[in-house]
């Protein structure tokens, strides 16, 4: 009896599991809508068909991995926790701060967080890239493309 955890460490098995999850989620959600019939398909029709297909494929993946005697490809690179967290936090921070604090404050802050994705934080490098990118973004996006991004902090309104 193979160890469950090591089974799911295999890429194909984990993918199969993921697809089963997604298929189930969408499938259940599509049942909330009217399915209609083949003659008059409702909003839930197509999503349900797709979800079922996805469940089939996911099961096929799991089955195929189970059947193989030798393990298939495992995860190769180590989990890039640092890079992932840093990038995601940087992006979320941007979304949070831009409308509230404006471009000139947000970009340097976001850059500081992003910088931590790639090793040691160097003050000089951060300062230079913060200045360059903030200025560049302002010039290209606000002036050049007329995007009207907020540049300075907005006073909180209630």
């Amino acid at each position, binding site marked *: 009896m193979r160890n469950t955890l090591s089974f799911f460490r295999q890429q194909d098995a984990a993918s199969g599991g993921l697809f089963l999850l997604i298929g189930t989620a969408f499938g259940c959600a599509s049942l909330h*809508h009217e399915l209609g019939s083949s*003659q008059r398909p409702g*909003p839930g029709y197509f999503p349900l068909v797709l979800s079922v297909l*996805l469940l089939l494929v996911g099961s096929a993946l799991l089955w195929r991995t189970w059947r193989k005697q030798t393990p298939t490809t495992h995860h190769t690179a180590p989990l890039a926790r640092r890079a992932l967290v840093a990038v*995601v936090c*940087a992006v*979320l921070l941007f979304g949070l701060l831009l409308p509230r604090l404006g471009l000139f404050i947000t970009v340097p802050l976001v850059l500081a967080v992003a910088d931590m994705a*790639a090793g040691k934080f160097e003050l000089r490098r951060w300062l230079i890239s913060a200045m360059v990118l903030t200025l560049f973004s302002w010039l290209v996006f606000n002036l050049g493309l007329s995007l009207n991004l907020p540049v300075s902090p907005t006073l909180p309104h209630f």
Partner: protein
Amino acid sequence: MELLHNLAMGFETALSLQNLAYAFLGCLLGTLIGVLPGLGPVTTIAMLLPSVYGLDAAPALIMLAGIYYGAQYGGSTTAILINVPGEASSVVTALDGYQLARQGRAGAALAAAGLGSFFAGSVATLALAAFAAPLTELALAFGNAEYFSLMVLGLVGAVVLASGSMLKAIAMVLVGLLLGQVNTDVITGEARFTFGIQQLQDGINFVVLAMGLFGLGEIITNLNSGDSRRSLLTQKIERLWPTQAEFKEGSGATVRGTVLGSILGLLPGGGALLASFASYALEKKISRTPENFGKGAIAGVAGPESANNAAAQTSFIPMLTLGIPPNAVMALMVGAMMIKGIQPGPQVMTSNPTLFWGLIASMWVGNLMLIVLNLPLIGMWVKLLTVPYRLLFPAILVFCCIGAYSLNGESFDVYMTALFCCAGYLFNRLGCEPAPLLLGFILGPMMEENLRRALLQSQGDWTAIATRPISAGLLLLAALLMVMVLSPHVGRKREEAFQGD
């Protein structure tokens, strides 16, 4: 001849100062990202999509197109000079190109790549012009069932020609299709899968999806794989022009590569990458000196480079005439057109003729610009390679964030981008390719609409889709493709072809 008249009109549009400027910008950007590994046309175009809102349709598309085929040119430069392919499709070029460079024949390799690409680009653009009209006429005979089957064929093609596990590619297409279902139902007006979130009522913005999955996800992967110091061939590149003998060697390969690339670019899921691999395999097979391959055969550079450029051009055909994007980049172009309110499909040619022919003409102009940009400016491009990724990726990140925000002036889109960034990383770790997902996502709503209309018309008869002649033919083709790939022999060949990935 009508073709000449259309081309004349096209050149009139393409040679306007504004369009020339945007073509140049596109080619410049394209070469730049082609040269820089870790930044590709998909990411760049996704990043630039928000700016399309502010531009007119023709300059926007011209620029984006320039980026795409420009990247093919740029990728070969680094492949040859430092054995680091800037683009996936330049992997093959590096095999012989780098060897040639080490033998002091970098100039010949670069010229072979450049000239071959230009020839291929010109021919392919002509093919595009010539086949556009007949294909469009064919497409006008398409009804809902036919469109549905065509999209099925497109998705099957994308799955079949994708690298890696076919089952996973199919699953990714399905996930993409499902994600495309998050919207307000066209026929009943009900909101689906929106969890009550108002911003999702128009669906997930595909720019957000593209940026998160491709742009940001790629950043994380690149950061993780580390920045290996590459050996730079800094010796001066002499003698840019190839000798008589080298010319002859390369010209046959160029022509063959052009033909091969032009055909493969049409296929859904095909495109530059497949074309370059196929051309290399072909050249090696028919060469009188196959043992030279891998040690510096000019044909091994000229062929693949011509092929990938030709494929990049002809992949516009299914997109412009039928509205079906054959690969991820074209899917983004479809998105760009929809942003400008242009519904891609056979009617584009008749409703926006200046745009259509202008785009085609500007592709030829762009190819010309690229050959000028690339050969003399090689030194400059090489200098750029010394920019460490550490400085590059924050810029990409910031541009993605700004781009996401600028779509609707809403932070929600930025948060969604972060979500898809996680998803992109997850898929990457699980060995699932994101490109089929993007294709499924773009085609999903169209597929559903066509399917439902077809079913309504046929009174619920599913077999009607399979029995109408054109539709049946398309589905048969799709089935054939799948069977072909599932057969063990082809499966092995396919794995071989993607060894280099």
